[in-house]
């Protein structure tokens, strides 16, 4: 069996526009005045058709509308894209079709239409649950508006997730604990809880470099916040299945699991990445990031000529290990051994167990609680041991 089949097959579609740029965000998101959604629709449809020709015979498990802010897409556009996808591939019985939404009032009015268009799951960027912090994060919505949007979302969708960013400026352990309890009382089946990352090239990145981003939690407080988060969520029935993702059992994001489990995925839209195994070769692709450039290439019918790189077995193995170690279920040792074409006896990983970073359990290598906090080191050590 080809390795990707362990992970599945999904489609990611990138909508690169937002109403405003958040100061912490380094996603490929842009603020644009006039967006001709019809024109974008045509481009997405063209790319769907082209991708489908390369993957005939495959069954699609999931679709993810990510951004940017895909909830700025008109529902009719989303509907046309989803029906084109359904025409182009066979789909599993209950495909997961997620759309990322911002919790503003415009979005709230559209949830029903998205549902009708075929979206089955919504992931909402709540970010914080009080107005002062939302303002500091540069968000346009208030906490009340977000809650209201969320209520509408949950009345329309069975599966609703939301994102929070913690380890914010001035946040204490108990501030976060109180906020987390509130979040859990709202949560339906899934939660993403990210520690604030200062990304270079963002407004926060610049401010941080100039020493102007004060009162960020230090490493020790951030570690304590993470551990507390694990504990509180676990007790509430939302254990983490990935470093920053929590779900009730069976409600994990199937689309994101494809990434972490090393499946294949198509990336459609500006800057979208894809991984596709064709005749035993794994191809890595990245579409041009600039929205205008992407649109132009697609309209001229030459987007298919983007450079693609084929991953060496080592590179493939590297990606698999750095993604799969993020999961609570861990890295599948026989799979890794197979990718590398060599034996990986359990003894390979003794040193990790000794330093309490990772354990082997039924053929899987799993980061320990300590190891999850130090996952970059675990990844470095595993890479060193197996490559």
């Amino acid at each position, binding site marked *: 069996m080809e390795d990707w089949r362990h992970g599945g097959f999904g489609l*990611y579609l990138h909508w690169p526009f937002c109403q405003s740029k958040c100061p912490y965000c380094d996603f490929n998101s842009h603020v644009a005045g006039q967006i001709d959604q019809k024109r974008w629709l045509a481009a997405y449809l063209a790319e769907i058709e082209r991708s489908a020709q390369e993957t005939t015979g495959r069954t699609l498990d999931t679709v993810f509308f990510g951004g940017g802010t895909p909830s700025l897409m008109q529902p009719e556009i989303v509907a046309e894209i989803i029906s084109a996808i359904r025409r182009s591939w066979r789909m599993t019985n209950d495909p997961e079709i997620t759309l990322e939404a911002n919790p503003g009032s415009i979005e709230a009015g559209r949830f029903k239409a998205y549902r009708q268009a075929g979206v089955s799951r919504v992931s909402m960027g709540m970010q914080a649950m009080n107005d002062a912090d939302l303002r500091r994060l540069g968000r346009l919505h208030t906490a009340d508006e977000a809650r209201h949007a969320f209520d509408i979302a949950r009345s329309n969708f069975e599966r609703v997730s939301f994102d929070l960013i913690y380890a914010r400026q001035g946040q204490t352990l108990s501030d976060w604990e109180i906020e987390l309890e509130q979040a859990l009382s709202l949560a339906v089946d899934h939660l993403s809880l990210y520690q604030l990352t200062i990304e270079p090239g963002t407004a926060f990145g610049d401010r941080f470099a100039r020493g102007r981003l004060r009162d960020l939690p230090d490493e020790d407080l951030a570690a304590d916040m993470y551990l507390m988060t694990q504990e509180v969520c676990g007790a509430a029935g939302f254990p983490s299945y990935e470093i920053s993702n929590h779900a009730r059992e069976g409600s994990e994001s199937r689309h994101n699991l494809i990434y972490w489990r090393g499946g294949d995925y198509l990336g459609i839209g500006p800057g979208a990445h894809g991984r596709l195994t064709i005749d035993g070769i794994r191809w890595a692709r990245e579409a041009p990031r600039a929205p205008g450039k992407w649109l132009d290439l697609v309209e001229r019918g030459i987007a298919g000529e983007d450079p693609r790189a084929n991953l060496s077995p080592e590179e493939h193995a590297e990606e698999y290990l750095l993604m799969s170690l993020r999961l609570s279920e861990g890295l599948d040792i026989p799979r890794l051994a197979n990718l590398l074409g060599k034996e990986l006896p359990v003894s390979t990983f003794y040193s990790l167990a000794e330093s309490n970073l990772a354990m082997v359990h039924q053929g899987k290598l799993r980061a320990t609680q300590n190891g999850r906090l130090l996952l970059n080191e675990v990844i*470095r050590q595993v890479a060193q041991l197996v490559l």
Partner: protein
Amino acid sequence: MTQLDLIRNFSIVAHIDHGKSTLADRLIQMTGTVAERDMKAQLLDSMDIERERGITIKANTVRIEYPAKDGRTYILNLIDTPGHVDFAYEVSRSMRAVEGSLLVVDASQGVEAQTLANVYQALDAGHEIVPVLNKIDLPAAEPERVKQQIEDVIGLDASDAVPISAKSGLGIPDVLEAIVTRLPPPKGDREAPLKAMLVDSWYDAYLGVVVMIRVMDGVIRKGDRVRMMQTNAVYGIDKLAVLKPQMVDIEELGPGEIGIFTASIKQVRDTRVGDTITHERKGCDQPLPGFKPAQPVVFCGLFPVDAADFEPLRDAIEKLSLNDASFSSEMETSAALGFGFRCGFLGLLHLEVIRDRLEREYDLDLITTAPSVVFKLHMKDGEIRDLHNPADMPDLTYVDHIDEPRIKATIMVPDDYLGDILKLCQDRRGIQLDLSYAGSRAMVVYDLPLAEVVFDFYDRLKSVTKGYASFDYQISEYREDHLVKMSILVNDEPVDALSMMVHRDRAESRGRAMVEKLKELIPRHMFKIPIQAAIGSRVIARETLSAMRKDVTAKCYGGDASRKRKLLDKQKAGKKRMRQFGKVEIPQEAFISALKMDG
């Protein structure tokens, strides 16, 4: 040949920035020595670094023809001397080649520490001195007050001081006249055997080693065979020239004249500044009194950041030392930094200049270890050893006592800042020798350990006085003090490149500062790391760097796989920029910053 009474040889002494180079340029320009279009500002400062920093490092010379008011044309030889203390030895030897000096004082600033140091050297050399008040175009210029100051502080008659603006050219003709009328002509006997002083030598890419001489007696001609009296080496003169400032060939040089020759000499090191040059046959019997060669006083290690650059560094150091006999180097290995060189310099500026040139001209990335002075170890068996590198400190049980170099420092400062200066000197183990006033400026003289000055004294001095203090020093003597070697241990392993000699009473504070700084600089590891400062086996300061607790990426989706993989590959390569100490990896930057010693 020029008649003796038509020659004037002189130098210009001044505190840095008082306008020495500008004046030299004006003199050259006004006498038409250099065509207007060839005039680059500051003609005599030829090295890039000199031009950039506006300082003169090597002595330069120029021959000027000046038709004076008396109707006769004079030959004026100007030797432009370095102004900085590090190069004081060059000043003193250049001064021995001339008979007079122009003392340039910025009329808006007044007498400064280097003015004093340099003018005393000129007086020691027996010079006639003409005071020149520069920058009188500035509104802040106070020529009368500065005249008074010259009389009070230096004890020179300043009533005939020449007021000028080197910038605008005002007063320059008066300076030229003063040179002719107030400075003495050289003495010498044309018929006597050749006796010439080796004033300087340098390496020229086209000509090889160039030797600058001042003829005292006799005549030197192209083709002559000459002997260097100290080295006893014999050479044939290939080229004889004067500097205008570009080389112009000349048939002969007679008494009182200054010029250069080349003679297929291989290395600058084969020439001794101060040596006496005479003819191979019928030479003179008595050499001129020689000069003490300049001794390096500050040492530091220079290591390539990238170990692969060791060979290029060796070549670069060799090339530079060809042209700079006062810079010494010796191979050194450090557990921390790998292969490199222990280098000796005349002072911190010299160190910086050399390091800059290595990095710039040879495109090298270097790590500089803490500068150290030369300590004299008096061993119990009576032997006296020079200690250039704290890492080489022998076991204390063999050492009877340690002497360190002391300096006599002269500091001039507006009296508002006097208190800060006294405190600074006191903190650096200084002993006050003198304190006097000239107007609103105070002059303090301190006996200080050189070791306390090489770190950051000059920077501190500038910052506590907002740049208003001036400073000069001379090495005075070696003296015993309670000195100890402080080692730094990271995870219980000594890091040789960080060890230093300190005074016992200051060891704790130095040690504490160092371990605190290192705690910030060394990244957390998977285990906790003790960082200690120790004297022998006694720990005097300690910090613990706690184990890393968190290093995990919060978000990682399909679009991040490539980036994360590349990061992982880069980390594998990035190990090169870390130095491994037992289990601890210390980034190069940590050495550089820890050794900067800014507090």
